[in-house]
């Protein structure tokens, strides 16, 4: 189109005509891109980071989009992008504000979103983790769900769980989403310190700690699996999008 616009052998009106078609098509494409990303927010987080938010609550579809987008924007290896980290349903993009402006980076993000897939990618690893169901809150959790401890354990380990997020603390893993009837809220009181390897449960998810930390989640068990090792590169074994199966170990 632009070629015809530039070609001088065409008449003035022909060139104007092609120019208008070019603008119209460009606008159409931009609208399509905006439309595709509808519901996705690109928000400044200070003057050195952008938050790309796919949803306001934990939905599997938004989680998959976040993981895919984080991968895709990493592949650009853009010189002004300093760090990329996917969270449950959002992605943090940290940048050097001397090299790129918020608006320039937003348009790069929009284009990446446009090309990013909505489906799960196939190269995930399935981790089997041996779990001792001996947590101090196990009984209470079962009661809250009107299940016996035995029934809860069977339900909890019945299917593989997707790794939804890492990065809350070193090596920390969020996985889920459990069946709707297994959802319970956090505890009212925060436990001061749970050890590394604790399996904690709330909000439709299970999480595995790799460092000692305070938590408001219910402690349902412990495992020997440690996902954080500073001598390894990268320092974690479990990646976003991997699957985890909890295998019950008799106590």
């Amino acid at each position, binding site marked *: 189109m632009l070629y015809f616009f530039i070609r001088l052998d065409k008449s003035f009106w022909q060139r104007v005509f092609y120019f208008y078609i070019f603008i119209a098509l460009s606008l159409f494409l931009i609208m399509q891109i905006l439309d595709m990303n509808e519901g996705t927010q690109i*928000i*400044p*987080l200070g*003057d050195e*980071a952008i938050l790309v938010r796919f949803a*306001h609550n934990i939905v599997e579809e938004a989680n998959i989009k976040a993981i895919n987008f984080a991968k895709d924007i990493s592949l650009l290896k853009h010189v002004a992008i300093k760090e990329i980290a996917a969270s449950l349903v*959002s992605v943090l993009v940290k940048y050097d504000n001397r090299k790129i402006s918020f608006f320039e980076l937003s348009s790069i993000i929009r284009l990446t979103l446009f090309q990013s897939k909505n489906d799960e990618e196939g190269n995930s690893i399935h981790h089997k983790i041996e779990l001792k169901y001996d947590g101090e809150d196990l009984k209470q959790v079962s009661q809250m769900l009107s299940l016996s401890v035995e029934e809860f354990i069977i339900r909890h380990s019945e299917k593989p769980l997707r790794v939804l997020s*890492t*990065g809350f603390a070193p090596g920390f893993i969020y996985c889920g989403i459990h069946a709707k009837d297994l959802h319970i809220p956090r505890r009212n009181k925060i436990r001061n310190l749970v050890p590394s390897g604790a399996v904690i449960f709330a909000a439709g998810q299970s999480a595995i700690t790799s460092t000692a930390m305070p938590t408001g989640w219910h402690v349902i068990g412990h495992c020997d699996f440690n996902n954080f090792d500073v001598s390894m590169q990268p320092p974690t074994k479990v990646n*976003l999008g991997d699957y985890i199966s909890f295998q019950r170990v008799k106590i």
Partner: protein
Amino acid sequence: MKFVITRASPLSTIQDEGRFGYLKYGVSASGPMDKNAYFLGADLLNTNATSAVEFTQAGMDFIYYGEGKRVAFTGGDFSLFINQKEKNWRRVYKLAHDDEIIIKPNSWGNYGYIRFDGELDVKPILGSRATNTIVSLGGFGGNALKVGDEINLLSASIKNKIKSNLSSTQFDNQNNIFHIIWGVHANLFSQQIRDDLISKPFFISSQLNRMGVRLIDKNKIFEGEKILSLVSEPVVCGDIQILGDGVATVLMRDHQPSGGYPRIGTIISSDIDRFAQMRPNSKIFFKSKAVK
């Protein structure tokens, strides 16, 4: 070459520029609370060594052992004594064997830096010597420095003129205005609260550390703000987070990588150093700024 700490203010640590690229594995960057002061040390020394001792408000004392070594002192305002003689602050000195160094607090600031012409001999963890005491990572065994700690020094690194990362903004400790960019949850707060945030004063509380600085909200702007149930999202240094009990906290270098509390704004990167140096009870104001 080594130095032995004879007095350490609480939560003094070893820092370097920071540990970058590990957020997705749950590791915050850490790094100096006052980046400008940290870089100034390297500029004065003209060194490639990246590690520094960051001490807190009460200062630090140490004894140096070994052959002559250059050292730079930067940060807030502190009083410096080398072998009981008062010296100028924010200068380079050459230390000799058995020199006794005393650093006492002076008129302003929470953080100061000791930089040598040579790295501090602690093992880099994930590419950095910065300490994060919250998760016991890096620095001196993942811990804050304490009396009796002995830190060896490596020989001087190549003396190339390194490019200064100093920001052009003059450090003015009298300036108590901090610029914010409206945060990812600003729209969850009423217009009244947003107006108050950028017009009424706040005060720095005594609860401050490398993770965050709690603010005193004398005008009760955030009083009664209920816990909003938010999905956990990434957080950054400078975020003003409102806890369930209406307490405003500014997240600092050792913040957790993500969190579920609402964030009304973020202090811009070039104002963070100055903010970190504000002592408890200082009166501060926030001004909004558009992102470019």
